[in-house]
Every structure is written in structure tokens, then in C-alpha cells.
């Protein structure tokens, strides 16, 4: 296993340093990198202020985990990680001991701070919030919710930032800092066709976030439900916009995929109550065109007296703020179509909002590749150690070089990196293989599953003999590809890599891996 080999490499590196007291700081740094490698993959949510990152985080986790209700708190970095019981720990920038707090308590405190200078000062010293949650989803990776990459804040955000004594620059710096410490990134675009989103992409790529590549970055186009009611099918419109961003704006060079998300609907799906469900059922009983007409009017829907809908204005306001207009319309339509259980509605809304698919995308893309992504990052960190170590005597320098080599050699020893780079070239559109070769390349490198059978395109129950003969047959095919002069550059290299992948499968089948 890659993990074991990486662990062994870190152990070897630290063992090499053991006899050199002057290299103790380096050894500690190496220990940190090793711990970091062993700990969960860190995925940062990066985007503009109010692009719906926290909402997305909550939607992904199926609950209200990250603060979203009080804007001041969204100016902090929220680090969501797996833990046995829910909890929130406040970390401070002045080196104070972290405090354990209740989220609701923190939100109340924040609201009170608007009139209380002492509390405001408290808010200003917050570095980041660590949110611990037992959600199994967080076992695959930590989510780091960053405040924003904006270069200027407008409107309410500007006021909030001023109140917190934060400038766009330092919010942006904090976001970039956390993004660059992350192993992988979800780049969040809020609904919109504005040039600003393309600017965001440019910001992001120009910011020097080392990990920006299709392997490590996925895009989310959030708040797609706001295309409704202008577009009757907001998800379809979202898909069209995403396509445009990927192609026209060149996002394909940085993003593995850009998924439209009705994030508000997705978040609501996770948290609505039985009472909410009952009210939705009541609304669904009204004539569909009447309901649609009322919901479209937005603010009026939450205040006017509409006895024909059978739900009082105050409840309608609560539903509207939770689901949004499209969410109410969609939920009622689904109930009318026969969903009579809250759980079924919940599942369907998650699916329709794009959130379910996005979750499996994250788990599939980052989760399955977590070890490699983290190792890649660890190797980059370890490569920088000699510079960080400063002036050393020649003996220490040699010892350090030896320790560094023990880890960095994985870069050429682990074939997964070569596959990684072939995938990247594929997503960059640099490979000229025909369709069958492309599909095979993706399959072999584990895009459709990591088991041997998956990678060979065989059923899960395939017998070893069948796998062996398939592997040898494909190996011969790719040996011929290796020889084929039609392929040059990245494609030629990719052919060599795939040939090697099959070779490793043979070794695996023969028990030599």
C-alpha cells in the first residue's frame, strides 16, 4: 500500500536524522509532515465572500455545522473535522488557549457584539473555528471553509468587515493561506455570468496555490436555484453556465469538473423538520399554478395572507428562508408526485439539488486519491526542508539530503504519480488517443474504481486467471502502442505509463506488488 510505503519512507528519513542533534528541528518538521500525511486529507472551500461556501459545507455534511446565519462569523476560517461528538473550538490569533463553545452560543454572542465593544474585540481575535462533527463523511477528508478571495467588499459585507477590523486584503490572505495549506480545493463560484467569476478564476490561478490542478481541484457552481423562476429548470441552466466557464474561461486547465448545485435546497434537505414537511404537504395540496404564482412573488409570499394555501404567513416565511422559492416549488412538486415520507423527500431533494452527486464526486475524486494527493504535498514540503534548514555543516547537509531523498524518491518510485500526470494531461486535452484508448487509460488509472477488476474493466467477481489473461492481452496491446510512431509528446509518454500500469498489475496478480 502506498500509505505503508510512505510511512516507511518517513520513518527512514527520521531514522537518518536521529544521530544529528543539530538537525532536530528538521526532524520535528519531518515528523509534522508525516503526521500531516497520516491525518485526514484537507479540502479547502475557496471562493468569494458570500458565495455560499458555508452553506455548501453544511449541505455536504447534512446539517448546520458551519456558522452561516451570522455574517461576522463567516469572516473566519472554519475547519470542519471528524470527531466522536459534535463540538466547536475557537482558536485565537493571540496565542490564547482555544475555547470550547456551543455554536448557538457563539452566534448569540456575535449578535450582541454589534453593540458591545468588548465582545467585538473578542471576535476580532478569533483566528479560526474548529468544528468537530461525527458525520462519517468527514472521515474521508477535513473541510476547510475559507472566508473569501475578494479584493473588495461591497454592501453589507463591507460593513461587517469594517466592524471586525478586517480588510479585504487580510481576509483574502487568510483564505489563500489556508487554501495553500490544503491538500485539495473546492473552488466555489456563486451563480452568475458576470466577468467577476472569470476574474475569480484568474485570481485563483494567479495566487500561486500550488495544488491547483484538475487532480486536486473541483469546482462548485452554487446558488443555482436562483436561476428560478427566470429559468424553469435552474439545474439545467446551471449546467449550461458551468460548461461555459469550463470551456470559454479555461477552467478546464484547473478544475477536474464544475458541478451546478442548488446548494440552498441541498442544505434545507438536510435539516428540515417534520413540521416543515407537514406544511410543505399542505402547500402541495394547493393548485400547482396558484402555488407557483404565489411563491414566485417572493417577499409577498412570506407576508401576505393567502388562505387558499392553508399555511400561515409566519410558517411560509420560515419555509421560504430555509428552502428558497425554488426549493418550495420543487418540494411540493415531489410531494404531489407521491413522496409521502420526510426521509424520501430529503433524499430526493439532495439528489435533485446536485448535492448527492457532488458528495460522491468529492469522495470518489479526493477520497480515493487522498493518499496520493497528500503524499504529493508531503514531497513538496520535504523538498523545501533544505532551504528551511539554513546553514548546515557538510555532514549535516549530507544527512539531511539522505533523509530528504528517502521521501522524495517516492516521486519516481510510485507509479501512481506518473498515472496522475497522465490524467492531468488528459484533462488538459494534451492526449491524442482515440476514444477506446482514453477510456482504457481512465479505467486503468482508477478513475472508475480501484480494484484490479475495476481497472481491467471486468466484473467484480472475475477469476484471477481471467484477470491475468486480460492483463497480458492489454499489456501486449500497449506494448504495440508504445512502439507506434503515431504518438508523440505527452501521448507517447502516456502510452509508456499505461504499459507500465498493466505491468504492475501483472506483478500484483503474481503477488509481487
Amino acid at each position, binding site marked *: 500500500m502506498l500509505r505503508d510505503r510512505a510511512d516507511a519512507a518517513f520513518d527512514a528519513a527520521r531514522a537518518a536524522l536521529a544521530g544529528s542533534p543539530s538537525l532536530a528541528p528538521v526532524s520535528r518538521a519531518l515528523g509534522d509532515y508525516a503526521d500531516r500525511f497520516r491525518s485526514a486529507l484537507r479540502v479547502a472551500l475557496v471562493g468569494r465572500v458570500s458565495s455560499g461556501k458555508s452553506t455548501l459545507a453544511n449541505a455536504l455534511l447534512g446539517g448546520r455545522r458551519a456558522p452561516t446565519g451570522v455574517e461576522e462569523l463567516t469572516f473566519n476560517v472554519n475547519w470542519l473535522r471528524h470527531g466522536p461528538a459534535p463540538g466547536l473550538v475557537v482558536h485565537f490569533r493571540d496565542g490564547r488557549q482555544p475555547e470550547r463553545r456551543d455554536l448557538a452560543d457563539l452566534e448569540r454572542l456575535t449578535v450582541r457584539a454589534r453593540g458591545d465593544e468588548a465582545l467585538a474585540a473578542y471576535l476580532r481575535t478569533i483566528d479560526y473555528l474548529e468544528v468537530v462533527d461525527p458525520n462519517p463523511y468527514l472521515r474521508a477528508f477535513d473541510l476547510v471553509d475559507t472566508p473569501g478571495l475578494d479584493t473588495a467588499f461591497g454592501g453589507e459585507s463591507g460593513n461587517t468587515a469594517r466592524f471586525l477590523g478586517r480588510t479585504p486584503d487580510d481576509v483574502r490572505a487568510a483564505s489563500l493561506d489556508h487554501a495553500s495549506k490544503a491538500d485539495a480545493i473546492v473552488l466555489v463560484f456563486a451563480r452568475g455570468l458576470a466577468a467577476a467569476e472569470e476574474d475569480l478564476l484568474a485570481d485563483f490561478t494567479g495566487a500561486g496555490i500550488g495544488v491547483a490542478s484538475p487532480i486536486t481541484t473541483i469546482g462548485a457552481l452554487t446558488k443555482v436555484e436562483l436561476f428560478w423562476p427566470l429559468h424553469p429548470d435552474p439545474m439545467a441552466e446551471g449546467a449550461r453556465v458551468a460548461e461555459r466557464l469550463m470551456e470559454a474561461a479555461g477552467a478546464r486547465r484547473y478544475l477536474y469538473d464544475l458541478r451546478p448545485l442548488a446548494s440552498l435546497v441541498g442544505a434545507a434537505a438536510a435539516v428540515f423538520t417534520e413540521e416543515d414537511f407537514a406544511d410543505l404537504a399542505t402547500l402541495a395540496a394547493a393548485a400547482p399554478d396558484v402555488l407557483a404564482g404565489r411563491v414566485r412573488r417572493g417577499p409577498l409570499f412570506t407576508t401576505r395572507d393567502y388562505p387558499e394555501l392553508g399555511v400561515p404567513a409566519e410558517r411560509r416565511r420560515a419555509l421560504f428562508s430555509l428552502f428558497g422559492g425554488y426549493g418550495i416549488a420543487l418540494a411540493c412538486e415531489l410531494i404531489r408526485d407521491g413522496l409521502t415520507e420526510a426521509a424520501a423527500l430529503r433524499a430526493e431533494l439532495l439528489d435533485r439539488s446536485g448535492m448527492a452527486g457532488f458528495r460522491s464526486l468529492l469522495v470518489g475524486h479526493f477520497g480515493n486519491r487522498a493518499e496520493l494527493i497528500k503524499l504529493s504535498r508531503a514531497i513538496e514540503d520535504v523538498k523545501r526542508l533544505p532551504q528551511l534548514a539554513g546553514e548546515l555543516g557538510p555532514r549535516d547537509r549530507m544527512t539531511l539530503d539522505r533523509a530528504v531523498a528517502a521521501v522524495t524518491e517516492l516521486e*519516481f518510485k510510485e507509479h501512481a504519480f506518473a498515472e496522475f500526470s497522465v490524467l492531468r494531461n488528459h484533462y488538459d486535452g494534451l492526449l491524442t488517443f482515440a476514444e477506446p484508448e482514453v477510456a482504457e487509460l481512465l479505467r486503468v488509472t482508477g478513475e472508475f474504481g480501484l480494484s484490479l477488476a475495476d481497472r481491467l474493466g471486468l466484473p467484480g467477481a472475475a477469476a484471477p486467471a481471467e484477470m491475468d489473461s486480460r492483463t497480458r492481452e492489454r499489456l501486449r496491446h500497449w506494448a504495440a502502442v508504445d512502439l507506434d510512431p503515431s504518438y508523440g509528446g505527452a501521448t*507517447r509518454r502516456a502510452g509508456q505509463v499505461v504499459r507500465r500500469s498493466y505491468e504492475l498489475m501483472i506483478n500484483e496478480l503474481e503477488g509481487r506488488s
Partner: protein
Amino acid sequence: MTGPILAVDFGTSSSSAVLVAAGQTVPLKEPVSGSWSWPSSVYLDGETLRAGTLAERKKRIRPAHYRSEIKRLLGHDAPVVLGDRSFAPRDLVIAVLTALRAEAEAVHGGPVRRAVITVPAAYAHQDVRRTLMIEAAHSVGLVTVELLAEPVAAALSAPAGEEFTDDLVLVYDFGGGTFDTALVRLRGEGYEVLGHAALDDCGGRDVDAAVYAELRGGGAVLGGAVLGGAVLGGAVLDGADPVVAQRARLELVDLARNMKHQLSSVPEAEEVFSPLGMELTLGLPRFTRLVEPLVRRTIDCCRGLLHTCGVQPGEVSAVLLTGGSSRMPIVRNELAAAFGRPVRASRDPELAVVTGAARFAADAPRRVLRPLSSAGSGLRWEIPGGGGTLLRWLVAEGDRLGPGTPVAELRSVDGSVWLLAAGKVGVAGTLHGRYGDTVTAQADLVTLPARPAAPAQVPVERLRGTPRQLGKLDGVSAVQASPDGRALAVALETGAIHVLDSWDPSRPSLRLSAERDPSHVYLYQFDPDAGVIGCHCVGRGVVQEWDLTSGALRLTRDVGAGSNVTWSQDHRLMAVVAEDGRMRVADVERDREICGHQWTFGQYESPRPAFSADGAILAGNTKKDGLLLWSTGDGRPLTPGGLGGDRFYEFSPDGRHLAAWSYGTSVDVWGLPDLAHAGRFDDEASPSFSRGGDLLATVTRREVVVRDTETWHVRSRLPHYCEKNLGDLRFSEDGRLLSGLSWGGEILTWDLHAGEPVSRFSAGDGLTIRVTYRADWRVAVTSPYGGDVDVWDLARGTRVARIGCAPGTRDYFPFHYFDEDGRRLAVLTADKLRIWNLVP
């Protein structure tokens, strides 16, 4: 002297190699193709792994048995599958190296055991791929393997007169499989790779693929008409038979490669695609457009490198082109436009790296490090690159070291191999470290035991002066110089004895008349201070003494014709052995006989009786009787018990010890006068005591062993490396130097304080050599029987002068001595006394 060295540029796509031997560099041709390019490819042919062109020729038969660009696999743990067999990546590298070494040995006509192999700059100092490359080379029999970074080799390849000296060079290496660039700083003899970058999918093969795609797509002009891609493609390249199609494709890519090569020198390339009998043409402008994207990528890669290193293009002295793909004219143009710096290329850019490697290989004898001068008692060396790993020791603990003695072999972090040499005389005390240990200048590698400082080396003067002839000295039969060298006594065959002032020719000489002796005479005593000279006329059996002041004969004693006569140092005691073996020992002053003995001996033997320094003991030996001793006080036999037969003996000059020995047994030592057994040294021979008697030197088959005569502890073990025996050990007056004469005529001298050899030279070809040491032991004069006289600088082992002897005097044994202060040398040859001044 370094033996032949194989220099290898182990490339991704192909390799090249040069044999460096006897000052010549010979590029090695691939035996199958006759080209300088050795494909880095392998093919499993039955059970045999074939490398190079053979692999290329066979690849079409079974692609799955063929692997190109094997260097990319180095460092991978998982085996490589060829056909149904698996190979460690290392084995593939070994296959290529084996072929290279075999060709090198064929060219050299003997074993080649040393190599310089270039590796990419991306292989960091502690990179496992470096180790693997070295191990692969070891396993094909290359014992000493140096690694050199490819861009450094390229920078070293500049021809004589155009070397980079104090330059920052951007090495642009556009090879067959990859593009590599590096910034190399050259400063004096040193070099440093500031940074490097590479494109692993951008090489000549990719250029070929681009041209291939163009030809296939119909871009090539055919007989004036554009050929439709469908025609060429559909007809054969994508034909129904995959084997035929593949062969056609491989043929087309060969054409593409040929056209690329043509376009390096002509503006339009033409070829015929034989499966269709079609003429293909490609013009330079179109070719340039095809490869432009690739060249742009290489230039972007260089830009990225400069940026990463924080170097402005203006700081670069030159861009150096290497690798076959850099031959394309567009490369030079684009680089010049991009960086505005001079672009340099060697005549054969594909051989630039191996040429630099060969130059580096030829420099191997210069990779010797002298130790740092430090106040400490150990040896440490400043290692190029800061540090290295120990490869092997070339000395053992206790070995003598001298200036330049190779102590150890070391690999610097940069892959070069260095000899660590000693700086001055000493003894290797403790050797710190073993194979693979880190060596830096921070710690002593060798601890030297404390020892007195060796004397400064002073060159010995040359001889100058006109030889002076003192009369005519016909038929010299004996010669003796006075102890202070002032006077010389020469006995002539006529019976006359001349006593001369050695250094002042104006002084009249004394002439004495002795018996004319038909056999020969000995001047057994010549002491001008005591005013006495003694002569033994063997043939006549007479001993005579004269008063030197008056010239009057003082004494005539009949000892019997043919007798052998020995005196004690004070000439008070005399032992006479008659021809029949009867010995009489007498106190001549008191005129009384002390003892006698009847010796039994063989034809060419003599009992060689001798007195101890104080005369208290007389010894003698023959094979039959063995060693026998007598007390001269009371005349009783003293021979110690347990002393077997056939023993030679040696008294110490201070009279405290007697050593007895024979070849092949042991040296036994007794204390005097009580003859207490002091020591037995097995398998040693030829004992010799120092003048002060405090040291005893003996000889074993391999060493001279010097012992302290108080404790009998070994002071030094000095390897003599004499195939024949060594004997005739002599200590200098001060006991510091020791010389021996080998049976082969070599004179070996050691410094006993430093415990190491001082010099070694051949003074003749036999044992019969007269050796005279000047009192200070800086000069020795030698003369073999019947030969010329040589004057030697003993410290350096160099000859200062040769003094020829008159022809026709082969049976004469030249005689030589120094004056008291060593400034003058007197040499008596057959008929001449010549005096030489030793002048600075």
C-alpha cells in the same frame, strides 16, 4: 597511473561511450549499426536480453519483448515484464552497460575496470538512482565508477582553447527522449549546478512523431500535389493487417527521422515511401512550423528555470546546445531570439555529454586530495562538494605514510571519486570509518600517533672539481683510509705501501716497503693518531707493523701462509686460523696463547672468528662446528646451551649483546657477558645492531623488524618488498636511519623515527657492492665490483653523480671515503685517486 576508463553518457533514448586510455579518447561504435549512438533499448530474444541496435532491429517481431527508454525505469521497485519474463529495472541498465564495456574492452584489448557515467542533474546527491547506476556498473565489472551530472559534462566538453572558465552556462540538452536544461556555474576548476528543469515528453522522438503526423496527414508535398491523408493512411498505415500496418508506420517514422536529419543541412528533404513508391518532400519552413511548439516548450522550460534560480538572461554567459535534437536550425534561432545570449554548440552535439565525461575521466589522476594542514594529530581532507562517502582504505593501521601515499578512496557527494593522499611522513594510527561512512573535513579520518618531526628535506650538493691523480698507483692490492679520512694507505702489488694525505696533494707521502705478496694483503690497522699501520700478507703468512712517524718497521710476526687473522678492536688480541683449521688465540701484548680450537670446515668456508667489542669473547662458526664462543679471559668455551649448528653471529657494538642466527630458523639474542638468553625471533635473519647497541634490526621475508634492545618491543615493521633477500643492515650513527642491501643490489633506507621508507635505489645487480655513507647519511657512495662509482642523494634516492672508472679494470673494487666534515669525497679506482668537492 590510471588504467583505461570507459566514459558513458547513459541517455534516455540512446547512449554513447568513449574509451579513454593512454592519453587517447576513442568514441565507441555500436557494433551492429556502426554508429556512435547506442539505443538504450532492450529485447528479450529467447532467453537472452539483447541491448542496443539488436533490440531495435527485433522490436517489430514482438513489441512486448522490447522496451525502449529503459532509463526511465531506473529506481522503480517493481519488475519490468518482457514477454513472459520479469526483470529488475537494474538488469536492463546492466544489459546496456555490458554491451558498452564489452566494446570498450575489445577496442582496448584488455580489461576496463573504471568508468565515468553521466546522470541527469535531477538525480540529487543522495538519490537512490545514483546508487543503482553505480551498482549496475559494478555488476558488469566496472570496479571504480564515477558519476557526473550531464549538464556539467556538457559544459566540460568545450574544446581546448574555448573552455568555460568563469562562466554561467545555460545548458540546453535536447535529446532523443527528453529535454533537460540546467544552469551550470563554472569557476576555475569547480562547477556547480544552480538549478535544473526537464520535460519528460519532449525529445527527438516527439519531433519525429510530429513529422510523421505531417507526412501521414498528407502535409508533405508529393510531386507537386498535396497528398490526401486518406490515401497514405488508408492504404497501408491503417491497413487491415495490423502487422503490415505497423511495419509501414515504423518505416514512415524512419523516413520522418531521416527527413529531419536532412533538414539540418539542406532546405528541403526528400524520401521515398517504398510501400507505395511515393515521393515525399518536406521543406524547412513547414518543418519549422511543425517543431515550433516543441521548441517553444523547451524555451519556456529554460525561462522557468532562470526564473526559479533568480537569474536574468543577461547574466548567462552562453547557451550551450547539446543533444542530437539541438541540431535543428530553429533551435539556435529561437534561443538567440529568446535570450539574446551567445549560443554555442559543439561539432557533434549528441556527443557533447560523453566528450565532457571523457575529459573528466582523463582528469582522474588529478583527483587526489592532500590533507588539510592542521595542528591536530590526525589527517582530514577538504572534500569537494563538502563531503563524501568512504569507498575503501588503501592502508592498514600501522602502515607507514609518506607524502602522497594513497590512504583511502572516497566518493564525493557529486559522484566523483577521489584519492585521499597523506601529506607527510607518519604512521597510520587509527583508521576511522568503513565503507559507506560519511567523510567531511570536520573530523579526522586517520589518527596519527605522535612522533618527532622528520628532518627537512635538503637537496644534496652536486660534485664539482677536477680529479686529481696522485702519482701512478699501479696494481693496488689493498687500501685503507684513516678513521678521520685525512690519510690514505695504499698497498701495491709491488709490496710498497703509500701513506698519503688525502686532501693535500702538496704534502709528501710516506712510502713503506712490505713483503711483496703473491696472493693479497690486508691493511688491518691504519691509525695515524696512534702512529701505526699494520699489514697482513696472506700469501706469505706475515703480519707487519710500522711506525707512521718514522716509517720504521716495528714488528714482524709469522702467522703461517694462507692463515686468516682477526684482531680485537684494541689490537691486543689476535686469532689466527691456519689453512688446516687450527685456531690459535693469543694475547699479543702479553705474548701468551689463550686458547685454541680445531675447526672443521668446507671448501669455501672460513670460521670467521671475531671478538666482542671489549674483546672479552671470541666467536667463530663453521657449518660443521656451529657457533662456538670462548672467554678470552680464561680461554674456556662459553657456547650457550641449546645453540644448534650452522649459526652466524653478530656482536653489538656496545658489547652488551650477541645475536646468532641462520637462514630459516630464528635469531637468538643473548646478553653479555653472562650469555643470558634475551630473546628468540622466529623466521627472522640478518641481525644488525645500531652503533649505540640500543636497537636491533632483523629481516623477515617481508619486513625489516626493528626492536628496542632493552624491552625487545618492536619499534617498527618496515615492509621491504624485496623478492630476493635483504641483508647487510646498517644503522646511521644517530640510529635514526637504517639501510639494507638487497641481494638484487638495491639499497633501501628507512627513517626509523617516522617509520617509513626514505628511498630505494638500485646500486648494482648483486651483493658485492661497496657502500660508503657520509657521516650525516645524506649521501651514499656505491660501487659494484668492477663498476662505476655512483653518488646518491640518500633522502631522495636520486643519483647525484656517476664517476666512471678506467676501462679494463673490471676486477677492481673502487674505494671511497669522505673527509671529516663531508665536504670532500675521495675515490680510488684502479690507478687513480680522485678528489671531489661536494658543492651546493
